[in-house]
C-alpha cells in the first residue's frame, strides 16, 4: 500500500522485504538484549536477597 | 521404561553440553548445504536438480561425524560396563542411544528442510511433505549407524573405518530417500519411495539395536 503512495518501481517488493528484514532482525536483537538484561538483573536481586554479597564479575582467569 | 527414558534424557543432555547438539547441527547443515555449490559449481539448474541429494548427503555427513563417539565415550569411561548391569536389555540401551542421536541430527535436518526449500525455490505447499519425508527417512540413518558405531568401539580413531562400514548400509536409504524427496518436489507427490523409506526406517529401528547390542556384548569382554 505504501508502494502505491511512493512509487518504487517494478522491484518495490525487494526493497520492502529488505527494510522489513533489517527492522525485524534489529528489533529482535534489541528485544532480546532488554529481556536478557532484565533477567540477569532479577537474578542478581534474588541472589542478594538470599544473602550473596554483590561483587564484581569473576574475571576471565 | 524409566531406565530407557533416563538414558535418552542423559544422552540429549550430554549432546547439548558437549557438542552444542541442535544448534551445532543446524549450523553444520547450513554450512554443508551452502558449501556444496562451491564444490559442484554454481549452476543453479544443476543445484536444483540435485537438491535432494544435497539434503541427504548433508545428513549422512552429520551422522558419520557424530555417530562414531556415541558408544566409544561410554566404553572408555566405563559407563558401558555399568549400563550392561541394568535391567534394561542391551538392545534397548542401543536403541535409546540411537534415538537420542536421531533427535539431535534427524530433527534439526527436518527443521532445516524448509529453509533448504526456500533456497531451492520450492512450492510452499510441499513443505509439510518435505518435512515428513525427512522425518520418515532419518531414523534409518541413526539406527543403522548405531551398528557401525558399536562395531568400531575399540578402533580408537575409527572415523574413517566407521564410514567404510556403514556407508554400504546406507545405500538403500540414500536411494529411496532421494527419490522420495524428488517425488515430493516433482509432480508425482508422495509415492512408493516414501513408503519404502518408511519401511527401511522401521526395519532399521528394529534390527539396528539388535545388531548393535550383539556387537557391544563382544566388546565388553
Amino acid at each position, binding site marked *: 500500500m505504501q508502494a502505491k503512495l511512493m512509487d518504487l518501481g517494478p522491484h518495490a517488493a525487494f526493497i520492502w522485504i529488505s527494510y522489513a528484514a533489517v527492522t525485524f532482525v534489529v528489533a529482535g536483537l534489541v528485544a532480546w538484549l532488554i529481556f536478557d538484561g532484565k533477567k540477569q538483573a532479577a537474578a542478581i536481586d534474588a541472589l542478594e536477597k538470599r544473602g550473596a554479597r554483590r561483587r564484581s564479575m569473576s574475571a576471565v582467569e | 521404561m524409566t531406565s530407557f527414558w533416563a538414558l535418552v534424557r542423559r544422552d540429549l543432555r550430554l549432546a547439548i553440553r558437549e557438542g552444542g547438539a541442535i544448534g551445532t547441527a543446524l549450523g553444520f547443515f547450513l554450512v554443508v548445504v551452502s558449501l556444496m555449490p562451491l564444490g559442484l559449481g554454481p549452476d543453479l539448474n544443476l543445484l536444483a536438480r540435485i537438491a535432494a541429494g544435497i539434503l541427504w548427503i548433508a545428513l549422512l555427513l552429520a551422522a558419520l561425524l557424530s555417530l562414531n563417539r556415541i558408544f566409544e565415550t561410554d566404553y572408555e569411561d566405563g559407563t558401558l560396563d*555399568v549400563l550392561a548391569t541394568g535391567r534394561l536389555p542391551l538392545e534397548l540401551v542401543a536403541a535409546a542411544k540411537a534415538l537420542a542421536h536421531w533427535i539431535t541430527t534427524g530433527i534439526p535436518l527436518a527443521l532445516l528442510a524448509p529453509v533448504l526449500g526456500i533456497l531451492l525455490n520450492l512450492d510452499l505447499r510441499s513443505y509439510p511433505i518435505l518435512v515428513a519425508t525427512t522425518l520418515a527417512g532419518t531414523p534409518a540413518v541413526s539406527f543403522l549407524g548405531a551398528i557401525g558405531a558399536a562395531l568400531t568401539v575399540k578402533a580408537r580413531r575409527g572415523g574413517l573405518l566407521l564410514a567404510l562400514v556403514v556407508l554400504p548400509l546406507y545405500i538403500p536409504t540414500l536411494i529411496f530417500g532421494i527419490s522420495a524427496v524428488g517425488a515430493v518436489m516433482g509432480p508425482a507427490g508422495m509415492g512408493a519411495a516414501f513408503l519404502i523409506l518408511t519401511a527401511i526406517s522401521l526395519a532399521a529401528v528394529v534390527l539396528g539395536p539388535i545388531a548393535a547390542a550383539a556387537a557391544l556384548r563382544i566388546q565388553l569382554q
Partner: protein
Amino acid sequence: MQLIAEDLIIERGGRIVIDGLSFAVSEGEALVLSGANGAGKTTLLRTVAGYIRPSSGSVHLDGGDSELTISEQAHVVGHANAVKSSLTVFENAAFWSEYLSGSVADAESIERALRHFGLDDLAEFPAAYLSAGQRRRLGLARLLLAVRPVWLLDEPTVSLDIASSDRLVAAVNDHTRAGGLAIIATHLPLALERVRTLTIISRRMAA
C-alpha cells in the same frame, strides 16, 4: 543367598589366566581377592559379572532372583568410574539411580549417597572439576544409589584418602551386615568384617 563359582577356566588373549578355580561367597560375607599385578583379579571379577564368558566352568547365584542374571543383581565398580565430566555430580548420581533402580530417583536418597562419600558439597559442580579421589568417590556412590545384593569392586580404594577408604569400608560392612555379599579385588589391607581372602597366584610371572 550364595554366589558359587565352579571350576572356572578363563582365557584372555589366548592365554589361560585362571585355571580351574572354585569358590563360594555367602550372604553376609566379603571375599577379598589379592594377588600380584596381572594375576587375574580383574579378569575373575569381570567373569563373575558376566562380561567375560569362561572357557569352562560356571558362576551362579543361589537364592537370588532367578529371573535376573548375576550382573542385573550386582553393582560393578571397575577401574573406570562411569562418570560423565560434563554432567554435575548430582546429575551423574541421579542418572545412575534412575537407570539402575528403574524408578524415578528421589533427591533425598541421592543426597544421602553423596553425603556418605563426602560429595554433598560438590553436588552442583560439573564432574570435570573433581579431583581423582572425588571422582572415584562419585563412582563408588553408585553402590548406595540402588539396592543390589552383590557388589563386585575392582580396586575401589584407588586414589582415595584415608578418610574415604574408611567410608568405603563402612559401606561394605553395612552391606554385608544387611545380608549382601561382596567380592573386592585390592592390593591394600582393608578393615572389613566377616572377610575371607582368596589369593590368586599368577600363572606366568614371578614379579
